């Protein structure tokens, strides 16, 4: 099976909204801002992105639901397109693990 694995750190720029699927599965969605410095072609450069994180299922969704704005998080999971209407361009991270990394100073 083709691999699809993401590990990313950042801060919460929009706190999670917690809701339930019609079948009763809790689903949380929050937005993560990432900023880092990376190496490319032997040179230093910036990496900056904003991406939504979906955390579904008992436990994980509630954990995500407790996150507040500016909380630092480490999320691991996989990427998938956000919805069929916006085509294949917009992506979200579906979380498998979320780790609270403390209140960070603003990255930028």
């Amino acid at each position, binding site marked *: 099976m083709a691999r699809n694995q993401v590990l990313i750190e950042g801060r919460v720029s929009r706190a999670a909204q917690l809701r339930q*699927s*019609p079948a009763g599965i809790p689903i949380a969605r929050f937005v993560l801002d990432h900023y880092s410095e990376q190496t490319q072609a032997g040179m230093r450069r910036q990496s900056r992105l904003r991406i939504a994180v*979906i955390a*579904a299922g008992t436990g994980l969704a509630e954990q995500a639901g407790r996150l507040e704005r500016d909380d630092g998080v480490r999320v691991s999971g996989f990427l998938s397109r956000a*919805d069929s*209407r916006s085509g294949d361009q917009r992506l979200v991270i579906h979380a498998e693990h979320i780790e609270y990394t403390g209140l960070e100073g603003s990255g930028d």
Partner: protein
Amino acid sequence: MPNQSTATYVRVALPCPLYRSFDYRLDPVGGAAPGCRVRVPFGRRSLVGVILESSPRTELRADQIKPVSEVIDARPLLPPDLLALLHWAAGYYHHPVGEVFAQALPALLRQGRPAAIEQTRCWQLSPAGRAIDPAGLGRAPRQAALLAWLAGCPDGADREQLQARDLYRPDALKALVAKGWVKELTATPGLTPPQPGGTAPELNPAQATAVQAVAEHTGYGCFLLDGVTGSGKTEVYIRAIEQALAAGRQTLLLVPEIGLTPQLMQRLRARLAAPLVILHSGLSERERLNAWVAARDGAARIVVGTRSAVFTPLPEPGLFIVDEEHDPSLKQQDGFRYSARDLLIWRARQQDVPILLGSATPSLESLYNADQGRYQRLHLPSRAGTASAPALKLLDIRGQPLREGLAEPLIGAMHRHLERGEQVLLFLNRRGFAPTLICHECGWVAACQRCDSHLTLHQGRGRLHCHHCDASQPVPVQCPECGSPDLRGLGYGTERIEQTLQALFPGHTCLRIDRDSTRRKGQLETLLERAQSGEAQILLGTQMLAKGHHFPGVTLVGILEADQRLFSSDFRASERLAQLIVQVAGRAGRAERPGTVLIQTHHPDHPLLRRLVGEGYSAFAEAALAERRETALPPYASLALLRAEATGREAPREFLEQAHTLAQQLSGPEIEFWGPVPAPMEKRAGRYRAQLLIQSPERAALHRLLRHWIPTLAESPAARRIRWSLDVDPVDTY
């Protein structure tokens, strides 16, 4: 009786789908007149049928004819006028005569039981039993179930009613009687003594004129009582019934649905000091037969019933009434598809009795007949008492942000009315939480496997339901296409709006009244009482709320969606929409405070909505009639619809093609055919459906064709491979 002494043969209507009657020999000769039931051998079975004619001759050879096994009735069960009505109905609707007769009789009579009133044992909660909480009877679940159910039956329940719900347990009943919680009585189901005590309000001049017009009339006459909502049509009925009672005559009153009109029944019982019986599908078979016999023997002076009550024999008819004459549920929609209104008009003419058709929104057919001078129109132009007509307003919701289906101006108006201590009624003709379940990620939609339709999400029960075939399944935990758990309800049903209202108006109680919230017996009555007492301030419901209820505290009505029917393929859709809007709007401002009606729409410039809101139902009806004339649709033409369905897609179409070819050979240019075409929802409950519409400006020409065509079709080999039906004067063309 003519021929009775010499009758050797009888012609019998038997409950079978054949377009004919059957001859049998009477042994001994005589002793049975038309209208008597007989038991006869039919193939290997024994059937109960009704004698249509007796005759000294038959066309059958002596060795072909079988004898009657038993004459059930010593004197005719059905009087000649009813035999004539059923005969005519079988001819007009081109339906097998035996099935027509079977439909007209209560089930116990179809089974050959005697036409006599019988007492039965029944069980009723005692005052001590009312005080018991069934939940506390943990170790006696059957007793608890009985207590809980009997709590909803103030008149008690008999064995048949308990058995129908699998609650009949003699031991449990005995135990409850021993504890003094339940009383065992003998009762005559279906017959309750009159309980008058109501006072008569003063008639306004229009009501008085209407009552007088009916009173001064002798013999047949059809009156169209065209009275705006809240104008006191019921009071006119009551006065007219009183006159019939005083003249020693019986009244037959047809209503669309009795379960939806407990208030009408209460008023009739409170005001009319005469034996009244009710006939509808919610009765036990014993109740139904007792009521039927009481009507036939003249003991019941007033008969109120749903459409099949049109077949109740009455020895002394004096007045016929059809309430909400525009209502499509007066037309039977399966089997023998008859219009109870139209049959009652025919019966009125035949029995030389006046008939009163009442509605705030008369059907276009009836308005047309009034214009032609066939009916006398009686106007009730204003509301009874001090109430004034509600003001209708269109609320343009194009580009407006909606909060879960509610526009801001509507929410604002609700706040203002609620703060003044008034009630608000919201109307949405869609039950469930959301009409569609969609996968947010891949766009998959939950569809019914057996119908061309989406499944409705019922959040409270955690199930998906098909509102067309009643299939049901649990809500899936993930999308069957892409696996995402993120499934969402798309669109709004009453269940969802109820949640929204609870969030928006936490200080007010909201009642949801739809088929889901009123499944159990007595629930509708309870909810209506809570609505009328003012205990709940927000009433939310489907068309169950639209019919005939009186909510004096409601001053604001919101119609959440008017657009659904604006673009329907059915030519009657606009008429139905206008009737529904006017009926729902009529719930507002029925007491001293004026009412407001807000209609949310994406089509505020639609000519139909504009005319209805600006000029009222009469102006709408006039324009709609002009349109019908231009397009040569009823009442300017007669229609019949031939429907066919089968598990395969081709068979219905092939049958209709053959039927079409045959019909063209039998008819002239005055008949037009549309189709065959697939039905608007082609697949339903696993069957493919197609239809052929037959149309003619001349009713007689249409019926000439049907008379030859339909029996031939019934015999054709293609008819055996599919299910088919004929609908004369269809109320829905799909």
